[in-house]
């Protein structure tokens, strides 16, 4: 039985395992992101639209331009560049657009890094090691940390043009602790509600948990993604932040089992990352057990960065780091099936360790 399964597992990317085409998946994922994008536009106004549109257009232009220049067939209609641009734009703060012609270069430069350096130079779709949108964001965050951590205050109105800035909930938690967070949001219920609906500072696409969940459930229902990565990712973060997230406000020492897992689950880019970016076919593992390990690894790294790292949010770096391990996880799982004790003799014809 396992012998038979083994023969049909395709572990070299891209992993097209049914008649569903690449283009169909890419466009479906893009559509499933629309509710979250809509919420982002609602809270952050036309600036958000400008940032996302710049990213999408420049990703398409860079991909088409590079493919033309290298003499390859132009494949922008498969939607992968569109999706990269959409995800990159949704991962940026709306404040990057400030109606100043000299500042629009950040989304464009991020798209350049995402498409040209992360994807095309590695061989195009299916050969990139890292998630292009996340590399684009990491590049921007590291190169322009001030601009990338200036968050607009959500104004709940399509025409909100005033540019008040504020800190993200996780930023407040890291800098000033839980007390300050409660001061800002009032009660814990209010905090959860605001986080769930998306009325908070953050990247354009990450704020509204309810919209992201809707998109994620749509993908699960259509079976474009499986539960393995997102659920293990979320569960690991919840468990670790519950155990190690509590802090004594006076001494700053960790109190075990006193964390606030719900707050950690709802805040930051966790939902966006778990459902839409860790599940990328190209840069994640393809075997089920490997996906579980991948999700756990993402969760552990995210919790470590959030609780003791220098950055308030760690989803992006966690996924990128686990991207490196994806091929390795697939190999490890393949040579010794998860949870079983088998000698090499018991798997005749199996790959040699």
């Amino acid at each position, binding site marked *: 039985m396992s012998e038979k399964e083994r023969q049909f597992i395709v572990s070299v990317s891209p992993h097209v395992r049914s008649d569903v085409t690449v283009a169909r998946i890419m466009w479906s994922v893009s559509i499933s992101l629309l509710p979250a994008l809509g919420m982002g536009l609602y809270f952050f106004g036309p600036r958000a639209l400008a940032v996302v549109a710049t990213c999408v257009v420049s990703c398409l232009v860079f991909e088409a331009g590079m493919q033309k220049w290298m003499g390859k067939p132009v494949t922008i209609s498969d939607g992968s560049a569109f999706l990269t641009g959409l995800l990159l734009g949704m991962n940026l703060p709306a404040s990057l657009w400030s109606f100043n012609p*000299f500042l629009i270069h950040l989304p464009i430069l991020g798209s350049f890094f995402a498409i040209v*350096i992360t994807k095309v*130079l590695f061989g195009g779709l299916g050969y990139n090691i890292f998630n292009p949108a996340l590399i684009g964001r990491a*590049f921007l965050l*590291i*190169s*322009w*940390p001030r*601009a990338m951590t200036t968050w607009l205050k959500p104004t709940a109105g399509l025409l909100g043009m005033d540019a008040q800035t504020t800190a993200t909930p996780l930023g407040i938690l890291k800098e000033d602790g839980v007390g300050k967070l409660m001061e800002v949001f009032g009660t814990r219920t209010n905090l959860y509600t605001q986080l769930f609906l998306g009325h908070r500072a953050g990247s354009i696409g990450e704020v509204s948990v309810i919209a992201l969940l809707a998109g994620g459930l749509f993908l699960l229902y259509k079976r474009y993604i499986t539960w393995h990565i997102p659920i293990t990712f979320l569960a690991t973060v919840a468990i670790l932040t519950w155990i190690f997230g509590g802090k004594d406000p006076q001494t700053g020492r960790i109190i075990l089992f006193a964390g606030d897992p719900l707050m950690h689950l709802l805040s930051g880019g966790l939902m966006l990352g778990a459902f839409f970016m860790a599940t990328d076919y190209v840069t994640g593992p393809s075997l089920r057990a490997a996906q579980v390990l991948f999700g756990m690894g993402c969760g552990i790294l995210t919790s470590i960065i959030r609780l003791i790292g220098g950055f308030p949010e760690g989803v992006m770096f966690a996924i990128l780091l686990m991207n490196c391990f994806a091929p390795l996880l697939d190999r490890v799982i393949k040579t010794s099936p998860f949870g079983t004790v088998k000698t090499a003799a018991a798997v005749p014809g199996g790959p040699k360790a």
Partner: protein
Amino acid sequence: MSAAQKVSYFGLIRNGIFGENPVFRVALSLCPAVAVTNTLKSGLLMGVAVFFVQVMANISISIVRKLIHARIRLPAYILIIGTWVTVANLLLAAYEWPIYKEIGLYVELIVAFAIILSRAELFASKNEVVPSFFDGLGMGLGFMFALGAISFVRELLGNGALLGYHVVNTHPVLLFALPMGGFFAVGLLMGFFNWIDIRFFGGHGASGAGH
């Protein structure tokens, strides 16, 4: 030996800078290419220190090449290289104190640079003093050129400056000033020089470099 008769001295120098550039083509000594290239000044000075050690080591190893027993040639070469590295380090500390403070730690590491030992083993131990001198000259210049190019890109993009003077008045790409920017700069420049080789000189890129 034969290499000296076939290749002109100018050819040896050109080989060091382009054909077998230590960093871009042979991909040796990448550690300093990443570590000390965040400003043009430190990159060039590191290049000068390596240049000095490479030339002196090549000359002295070529002189003693027939006296050294084959079994202990590597320890003997390392000793000779180490001597010249210490000399370079002491001279820097005595006469260029501010620069020594910046790159002194890395100058001491030159003793372990693969490029110097590899030229000693591959060239100086088989050739007369004069060709060895020119080979050292070429390799040293090639290394200096590579570090200069990398640090030029990194200081310009990462600090918007060159040799400490501001030239670009905008927010620089901080990534290139950080250590990880070194990896990006080395990789992109390596690709760029490969592309030039393939596109304009009919080469085969790094796979066709060297031997």
